[in-house]
């Protein structure tokens, strides 16, 4: 396979590009060059700035400083349409497909072929079929997109890009939703596109894919390029180290004393159809147990299965008691609660006032026939004080709170049920650093008070800073467990990437 394109002049490049959102700089003087006939891998942790970089390349965002170069000339794309017109096409991770239209209609959406006043269905179908053959994808151009599997949708998205005769292809984690076989087909296709002279940007969390396909690798960390070199001679381990190599800050309180040996939660053989296979683990009193892994590795689904919010098989014991399946109420009665990662869609009633949100989970504690509103008000006073919720007025709608205060309200709501075991999914997603610190303090004090906490987190620092023990999930399975001094970023990343424990390889 031809890895000769490295020296060719770039088709699309970024030169010293910075990007700010308000006062926060998310990209800092990034240089990146996509050359014809070459695959460029862009890797980094969540939040490192990959998405922003791709959006700037695809014309979705403008750089705050620096410039985008098309064929060596400065080109400020006014929009993604302008970028597409210049042959730069981005394939999104969240599909931009019209679900109710057919494959063919999607592929030609916005640039339908016509014969006179009518659509030329025959030609469009024939071309779509050709494209699908190139992708080795066996779907009918006339099938409706909503009926397709996720991986087929990905293929349609790629076919759509190919139909636009892209010279530069930007692929945002295209293999995240594909099976191994489909990934193989896609990588072969990328090989062929490269051979045809396309310039390709490829992102993936799976470093083996990167090693297999990339000609050049750029590693982003905290919005800066920390490594940029030819792929040849770059090992997967070096990529991982480059991605995570950063000092620990003192965001985290000292870890609470070692947990007791008493098991409070015992999960055996939990399987969530299509998401989690045969996961087992235990949780001890006073322990903070973190679940790490890539987005989509099945952590949330496992936890929802455990508390009964999702259909699952397997056994869950709280102490000696076995929980009935699919009954969140029973889990709650047993002292087990789950705090969703999706606080806007699943956590809070955004149009309801704080009080009604606060007591919704534990409403039975405020009800003796009628709801005791005074007790509710007292509870709100306490919650505002204990959790430091900053609200303009007491009767404002929860949706008007800032993200961090919403998260604290959600925590307060959950704690009102006086749980013994708390599962918190992404406790600090999308909130500022000060609030993060408060939430870490709360988790810490819960464990110190003899409760048990599970933290599901995609933030490496959080996992390392908080947990006594870490379970890493990959592709719906428990990939490994780390304890004490073994908890460090490299080990977690290796497990999450499916590389096995450090020291075993290399």
């Amino acid at each position, binding site marked *: 396979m031809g890895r000769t394109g490295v020296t060719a002049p770039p088709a699309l490049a970024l030169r010293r590009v910075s990007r700010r959102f308000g006062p926060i700089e998310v990209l800092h003087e990034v240089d990146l060059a996509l050359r014809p006939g070459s695959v460029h891998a862009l890797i980094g942790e969540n939040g490192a700035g990959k998405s922003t970089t791709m959006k700037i390349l695809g014309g979705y965002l403008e750089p705050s400083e620096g410039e985008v170069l098309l064929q060596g000339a400065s080109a400020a794309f006014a929009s993604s349409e302008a970028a597409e017109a210049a042959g730069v096409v981005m394939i999104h991770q969240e599909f931009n497909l019209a679900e109710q239209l057919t494959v063919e209609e999607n592929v030609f959406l916005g640039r339908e072929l016509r014969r006179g006043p009518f659509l030329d269905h025959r030609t469009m179908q024939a071309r779509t079929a050709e494209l699908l053959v190139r992708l080795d994808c066996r779907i009918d151009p006339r099938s409706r997109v909503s009926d397709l599997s996720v991986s087929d949708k990905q293929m349609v998205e790629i076919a759509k890009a190919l139909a636009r005769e892209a010279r530069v292809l930007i692929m945002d984690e295209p293999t995240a939703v594909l099976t191994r076989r489909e990934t193989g087909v896609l990588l072969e296709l990328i090989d062929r596109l490269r051979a045809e002279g396309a310039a390709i940007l490829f992102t993936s969390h799976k470093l083996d894919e990167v090693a297999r396909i990339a000609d050049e690798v750029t590693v982003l960390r905290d919005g800066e390029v920390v490594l940029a070199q030819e792929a040849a001679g770059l090992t997967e381990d070096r990529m991982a180290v480059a991605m995570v190599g950063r000092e620990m800050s003192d965001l985290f309180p000292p870890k609470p004393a070692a947990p007791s040996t008493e098991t409070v939660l015992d999960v055996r053989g939990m399987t969530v159809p299509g998401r989690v296979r045969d996961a087992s683990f235990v949780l001890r009193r006073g322990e903070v147990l973190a679940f790490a892994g890539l987005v989509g590795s099945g952590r949330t689904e496992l936890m929802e299965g455990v508390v009964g919010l999702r259909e699952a098989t397997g056994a869950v014991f709280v102490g000696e008691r076995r929980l009935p399946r699919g009954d969140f109420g029973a889990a709650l009665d047993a002292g087990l609660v789950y705090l969703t990662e999706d606080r806007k869609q699943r956590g809070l009633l955004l149009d309801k006032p704080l009080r009604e949100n606060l007591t919704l989970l534990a409403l039975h504690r405020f009800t003796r026939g009628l709801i005791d*509103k005074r007790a509710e008000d007292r509870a709100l006073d306490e919650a505002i004080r204990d959790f430091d919720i900053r609200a303009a007025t007491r009767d404002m709608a929860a949706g008007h709170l800032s993200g961090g205060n919403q998260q604290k309200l959600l925590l307060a709501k959950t704690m009102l049920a006086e749980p013994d075991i708390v599962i918190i999914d992404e406790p600090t997603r999308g909130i500022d650093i000060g609030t993060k610190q408060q939430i870490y303090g709360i988790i810490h004090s819960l464990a110190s008070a003899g409760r048990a906490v599970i933290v599901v987190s995609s933030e490496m620092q959080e996992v390392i800073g908080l947990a006594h023990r870490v379970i890493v999930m990959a592709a719906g399975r428990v990939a490994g467990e780390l304890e004490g001094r073994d908890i460090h970023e490299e080990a977690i990343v290796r497990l999450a990437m499916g590389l096995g424990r450090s020291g075993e390889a290399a």
Partner: protein
Amino acid sequence: MTATETQARGTRRGMRLDFHVLGPVLALVALIVIGILLNPNFLSYGNITNVLARSAFIGIIAVGMTFVITSGGLDLSVGSMAAFIAGLMILVMNALLPTLGVSVATILAGMATALVAGLVAGAINGLLVTRGRIEAFIVTLGTMGIYRSLVTWLADGGTLSLDFDLRTLYGPVYYGGLLGVAWPIIVFAIVAILGELAMRHTAFGRHCAATGSNEQVARYSAVHVDKVRTATYIMLGVLVGVATIMYVPRLGSASSSTGLLWELEAIAAVIIGGTVLKGGYGRVWGTVVGVLILSLIGNILNLTDVVSPYLNGAIQGVIIILAVVMQRGRAASR
């Protein structure tokens, strides 16, 4: 957003909210004033009793409808259901006549029939919506047609009439009263007060609002969403039974034209009262005000010659649309 901005927004919203709370009440007061100005008999004991008593059927049903709509549902079948239950009651009571005679027992049996039939009909709607996962609109559109046909069939295309002597015995349930207040008014008041309590002060009411506001959040807050939904339909069915118990003694008959369009009047009253059609927020006292507004429009038009009776529907329509416009105003301020 800074603290001051938030503060300002909160206050502004608060003022607007007050207007929304008062809107239906102001409309009601305006109608009453117009009524007094147009006809001196408007405030007479007789007229007030008439208006309140005839509001009772729709009113009792609309209280139940408030819960269904608040939890994100809809029930189009209530009018037909009332006609069917009325027909069933009359058949049962006439059939029991040879054994139980013209007695209170016969009437109690008829009442029990109405309540059980309402409960079963409500449960069917509820289970089809929750277990069957069918849109409430479709389910209840279907049952609406079914009950309407059933009553036509039961009556053989004509009118089912309660035995005359039974009617005489049963009549006081509509025409009689306690301390000068007619029974339908008393029952309506009790249902409304209990409904307001349930909506505002019980876990059930809170769960209805949570389910209608965001079903996922409710589920993730350990609310048994399906049970809540089903319960609202059952409650509405039972209340349709109660309304029918009050309706049958009035004319002692049921036909295929009984309860025609009651469902739309009930839904309109609920919406005029400030309950949000797509669910999440309900107000029982608002519904009561809505029912009274709709009744008064008809009453005032009958008491005067100012507006052509042909325009009765148009005036109701304008008021319903105004109510919805006001609702949208509130949604926009969120």
